[in-house]
């Protein structure tokens, strides 16, 4: 049984000693230290580098790959019932993706399929920390987050099969859909980092309407390299907006390893430079993910600003279904397969905690299977859109949407209008 330990606060200067040559320390030390909260129960040090192997170049992995698998960390906040709910979402997420793979093999999917295999705990437990009137912006692998927000597997299946009944009515694929009415989900676009300022803006809109809410989005170890990631998170920090940013470090950006995306040891260190809290969790442990997400959401609701949470895990498939991920060294897959979030959380609930009996677990699994089968049948039987339905909706025409404040009509203090008196500027441009 795992001992309940306090998360370790790690202090470090903002350097990666093994890689950075540092000047000798001055006689009187003026180095500042910063704190990164680290919830993990293991801290694997694994490196990937490009090596020549005969005529070709490949990735070689080094580090302690035989380390024992860590236990699930007990949650400070989740009840046994809530743990079981998260487990069910994770199961639905995983089994839905297996169903999508089958639909693809049957030739029913238009385009590719993206998987969150190995990341289900992160998707589901993070989204679980949000309240219904709060907002989420998923990335391509966060299909579990969409389920938690209230979309059904049939929605996602129909998206992949480009059916008329899909949330985008066939107009976009995969997890590229949203809902501003009920589920408060912002549809992602393919380029990465662009959701970050948008979710910050959602929090800004809510604040103008008198409510501090938590808004959550994700970025990967690859996507965090983009400029808009910086712009968005910095804006949220400056404006003190309740953004909870999960940096899902799954070690691969398509085929490029994390070691070729950034120099810092942990992406959570980026938080220091934004002036916001940074937290590290084991992304394969849903309890750690939830606890960090919950604390960040509470901070957001108190109006204290954004939090960056780095979730460490591994993408257990290729970038998409076409990609066999042969560039990933096999020992790395083996290391992370032993850390499978599903198997470990199931073991935690059934064998370690005994919150779920074997019979209850079997019943739960059967329930997920039958839900997925019903959704699969519905989705497969649903029609393709008509060709003409490509037309229309490019613009919001009169009567199609009523624009009104989501939370409350903003109120502002009455002030006298001052006389415009300031000097002209930019007058050299005349």
């Amino acid at each position: 049984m795992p001992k309940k330990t306090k998360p370790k606060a790690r202090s470090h200067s903002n350097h990666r000693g093994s890689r950075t040559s540092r000047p000798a320390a001055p006689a009187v030390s003026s180095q500042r230290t910063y704190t990164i909260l680290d919830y993990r129960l293991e801290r694997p040090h694994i490196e990937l580098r490009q090596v020549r192997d005969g005529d070709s170049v490949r990735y070689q992995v080094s580090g302690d790959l035989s380390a024992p698998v860590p236990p699930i960390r007990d949650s400070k906040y989740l009840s046994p019932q809530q743990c079981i709910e998260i487990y069910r979402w994770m199961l639905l997420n995983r089994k839905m993706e297996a169903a999508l793979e089958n639909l693809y093999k049957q030739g029913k999917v238009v385009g590719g399929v993206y998987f969150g295999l190995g990341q289900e705990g992160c998707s589901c437990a993070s989204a679980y920390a949000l309240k219904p009137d709060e907002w989420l912006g998923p990335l391509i692998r966060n299909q579990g987050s969409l389920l938690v927000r209230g979309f059904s597997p049939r929605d996602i299946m129909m998206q992949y099969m480009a059916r008329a009944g899909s949330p985008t009515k066939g107009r976009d694929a995969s997890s590229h859909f949203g809902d501003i009415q009920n589920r408060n989900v912002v549809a992602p676009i393919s380029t990465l980092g662009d959701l970050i300022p948008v979710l910050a803006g959602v929090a800004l809109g809510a604040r103008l309407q008198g409510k501090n809410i938590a808004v959550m989005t994700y970025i990967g170890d690859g996507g965090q390299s983009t400029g808009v990631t910086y712009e968005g998170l910095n804006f949220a920090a400056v404006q003190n907006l309740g953004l909870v940013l999960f940096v899902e470090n799954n070690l691969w950006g398509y085929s490029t390893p994390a070691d070729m995306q950034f120099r810092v040891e942990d992406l959570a260190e980026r938080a220091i430079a934004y002036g916001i809290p940074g937290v590290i969790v084991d992304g394969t442990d849903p309890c750690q993910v939830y606890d960090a997400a919950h604390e960040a959401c509470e901070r957001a609701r108190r109006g204290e600003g954004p939090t960056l949470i780095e979730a460490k895990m591994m993408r257990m498939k290729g970038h998409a279904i076409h990609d066999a991920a042969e560039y990933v060294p096999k020992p790395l897959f083996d290391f992370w397969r032993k850390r499978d979030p599903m198997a470990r959380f199931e073991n935690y609930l059934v064998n370690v905690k005994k919150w779920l009996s074997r019979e209850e677990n079997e019943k739960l699994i059967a329930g997920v299977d039958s839900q997925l089968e019903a959704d699969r049948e519905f989705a497969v039987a649903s029609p393709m859109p008509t060709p003409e339905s490509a037309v229309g909706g490019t613009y919001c025409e009169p009567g199609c949407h009523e624009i009104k404040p989501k939370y409350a009509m903003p109120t502002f203090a009455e002030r006298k209008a001052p006389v415009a008196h300031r000097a002209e500027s930019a007058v050299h441009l005349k």
Partner: protein
Amino acid sequence: MPTLTYLEAIRQGIWEEMERDPTVFCIGEDIGVYGGAFKVTDGFIDRFGPGRVIDTPIAESAIVGAAFGASLTGMRPVAEFQFMDFIGCAFNQITNMVAKAHYRWGAPAPLVIRGPSGGNVHGGPFHSQNPEMYFVHTPGLKVVCPATAYDAKGLIKASIRDNNPVIFFEHKYLYRRIKEEVPAEDYIVPLGKARVVRAGRDLSIISYAAMIHVALEAAELLSKEGIEIEVLDLRTVSPLDREAIAETVRRTNKVLILHEHARTGGIAGEISAIINEEAFDSLDGPIVRLTSLDSPVPFSPPQEEYFLPQLSDVVREARKLLAY
């Protein structure tokens, strides 16, 4: 009726909308305490407070992204770009995130992106551009380019009330150069409607923004020779007023299209195609394009003067076309 400059008219339009509708707010660089690089939002922060007049980091993608996010909660953001030349920094947010939102997932984006554009102010390649065509080519956006103070006020108010993303190009050459009587009361100029600013029967000049004033000067000059030129101000470059374009051609049978942005891929090509589709039989001569050069906007005054269409160019081309 008070007399307002083009800039004051825009300022008054935004101000009135903020007074009228508490969901309207401003966001941009240096727009608060400083009042904006051109002072369009001068005094706004004092009246409406820092909550509704938000100074941002120098981060155009964040400005557009945040405006879009706020619009999803039912707000109506007015985002200022210090110069429209910098809009390229937010190109992905505008064309992929914002413009496609309603088509893809039914999310209206009632936001305005506004700022100064245009040359003839010796601002060089990065403070003089007319980047509207990138956005005219992007379905889902509306593109507005006023030429007069009256239209500027009515169009900015209509843009703020529109449920779609509107890119509002203010011509900085006009900011303090033109004045006219502008009603103090509430009015709008509808988007997508062109206006005949001078009626004529011999030749039509189709244009917008600062070039309207060049066209009007040419019309005035030629009227002394008994030539009657019709000037059509598009006002909204996307969506184009196809009917107004066809009608002016049917009246005059000869068309000169005048614009300040580069020739290749310019709006003149699109308007020519519309005339071809809608009013081909009415043409009594070739459609003439008069545009800037296919080059960046040069800095030095003699170069910029050569780069931009001039009054003498319009008069010369109009005479040639009339003689055809």
